[in-house]
């Protein structure tokens, strides 16, 4: 691989991988609490559309970002009401959220299709910009969300593994009975996890429309929600490992874009397939073994003591 291509892929990997990472981190928290949100795709779309609409309407991308975070949080809380309080089947509820996201994002975004917004501002530290090999690329020229991606991953890791709250969340995901026996309320912990996950999911979606493409189009997340779910498995529910996974998949997407931009002969459609096939391969190769690493009570409904 030539250097410009490599650097281009690396730069693209970080840019593409940002929203994947936030989405994966959000879903990691939620799954650590024992809940699978198949509707993550819908949450991302809602974040992207609400973020874009709010940014366009208010003129400020920051307001858009905030709106997206709130919208994502509310979406997850709605999902939580279904699966935690009403004890509905998580798979079906997730699919319902997906449909809801498809439709709501289309509704919210419709008036703003084609609108021009100022995206999130990008910074590059001066000493890096001065380097010749950096200057010609988009490397290190990132918006705040991307700059914060790694710190947020570390923060999520710290919250899950070094705090009392995180211990409770993880216990809930492993054994709600044990969490309950230790004096905690699994439902409350699950709601909290969902709220946190929703904020991250909303930001993940917003990053696509407010930074990456600066547009809104229906279904623009293109299945990233499902890839994020696979990434959670791939990273063994560990926020730090998720960084590697997001980079890997972001890189695959970036490679595909770079090859297209350079007029490669490979059909764009075949390239576009690669993330999904890669995801399936990852699940196939490691999903069975990884299942041992899954929170033991993932996907089950808890009925309290009887």
């Amino acid at each position, binding site marked *: 691989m030539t250097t410009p291509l490599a650097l281009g892929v690396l730069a693209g990997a970080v840019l593409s991988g940002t929203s994947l990472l936030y989405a994966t981190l959000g879903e990691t928290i939620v799954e650590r609490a024992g809940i699978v949100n198949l509707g993550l795709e819908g949450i991302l779309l809602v974040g992207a559309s609400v973020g874009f609409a709010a940014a366009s309407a208010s003129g400020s991308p920051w307001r858009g970002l905030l709106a997206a975070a709130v919208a994502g949080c509310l979406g997850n809380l709605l999902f939580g009401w279904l699966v935690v309080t009403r004890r509905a089947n998580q798979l079906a509820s997730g699919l319902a959220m997906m449909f809801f996201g498809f*439709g709501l994002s289309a509704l919210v975004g*419709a008036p703003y299709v084609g609108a021009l917004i100022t995206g999130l501002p990008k910074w590059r530290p001066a000493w890096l910009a001065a380097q010749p090999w950096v200057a010609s690329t988009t490397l290190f020229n990132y918006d705040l969300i991307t700059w914060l991606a790694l710190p947020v991953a570390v923060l999520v890791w710290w919250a899950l593994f070094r705090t009392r709250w995180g211990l409770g969340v993880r216990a809930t995901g492993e054994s709600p009975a044990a969490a309950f026996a230790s004096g905690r309320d699994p439902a409350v912990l699950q709601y909290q996890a969902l709220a946190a996950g929703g904020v991250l999911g909303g930001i993940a979606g917003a990053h696509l429309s407010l930074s990456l493409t600066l547009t809104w189009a229906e279904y623009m997340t293109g299945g990233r929600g499902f890839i994020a*779910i696979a990434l959670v498995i791939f990273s063994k529910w560990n926020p730090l490992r998720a960084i590697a996974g997001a980079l890997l998949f972001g890189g695959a997407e970036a490679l595909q874009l770079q090859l297209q931009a350079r007029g490669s002969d490979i059909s764009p459609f075949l390239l*576009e397939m690669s993330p999904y096939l890669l995801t*399936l391969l990852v699940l*196939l190769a490691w999903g069975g073994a990884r299942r041992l690493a899954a929170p033991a009570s993932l996907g089950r409904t808890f009925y309290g003591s009887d």
Partner: protein
Amino acid sequence: MAEARTAQALRTAARLGLISAAALAVFAAILLAAGKDPLKAYADTFSYTLANAYGFSELLVRMTPLLLTAVAAALPSRLGLINVGGEGQLYMGAWLASAGAFMFPGLPWWLLLPLVTLLGFLGGAAWAAIPGLLRAARLVNETIATLLLNYVAPLIVSFFIFGPWRAKENSAYPQTSLFPEAARLPSFFDTRVHAGLLVALAALLAYWLLVEKTRWGVSMRAIGGNGEAAQRLGIPVAAWIVIALAVGGGCAGLAGMGEAMGVHGRLRPGLSPGYGFTGFLISWLAGGRPLGILFMAFLFAILTSAGDTLQITQGLPYSVVNILLAMILFIVLARRPARGGAK
């Protein structure tokens, strides 16, 4: 006995009616909040679909693939499997059928038509057998596997549309050449209703017969009802998982073939506006029951027509109708009494 059944059916119909009404109300509220006129939307939908013969025929056109994708989800659901891959299976059915049509253009209709029908079925079946095998081998959950493959299939189809099968004549739209006439499904009167409707109804009937009247149906329902007991009593559960998903996928494949050979006459990128997902919804809401599927497919044909109406008369994207579908799901999910919870 008969009175109890009728009473039961009436109760179910009343329940579904209430749910639909509630969902329509919430959807109306959302539309109002978005500055649109819900009453006009509903009125327009009615006049467009039910108030005239052509509109009604369009409902049947829309119902055809919905019936098939509903069966695609319903059959595996009898074993407790979740097939949300109807979308992808539909595309692969259309693809394989198209391949047959383009490869054997010279065949007479009484050979070509059955061939493309068979290929449509096989395309969807093969696409669904992949997650089936993965699930039977306990490697990947079939929900995720079918979901992911939904994204791959349309790309394969697009590859062929933009590549080897691209229409020779310069056209503004990306599409394939027309299929040979011998591969086209005949249509009725002056409408777009095509023979695929008969295939769909036959598939629904076959599904009912298979599940309720054959010994294979007994095995399938035993697996869905109590997998451990089924295994202990000698039923080969793993084999059935693959078979059920494959046959279901085949039905979705027939839907794809129907859309390509019956409605459009060629392959276009946007072949399916979410028929696979809508079919899953229909099957889920109908509890996998054939009469329920028939009714819900009709209802959803109307509801999704509302999507078109919204687009035409109120300038909203078609996708907004997904909110209405989601509302129905939410209400049903929120009402379900919590029972033995499993994934």
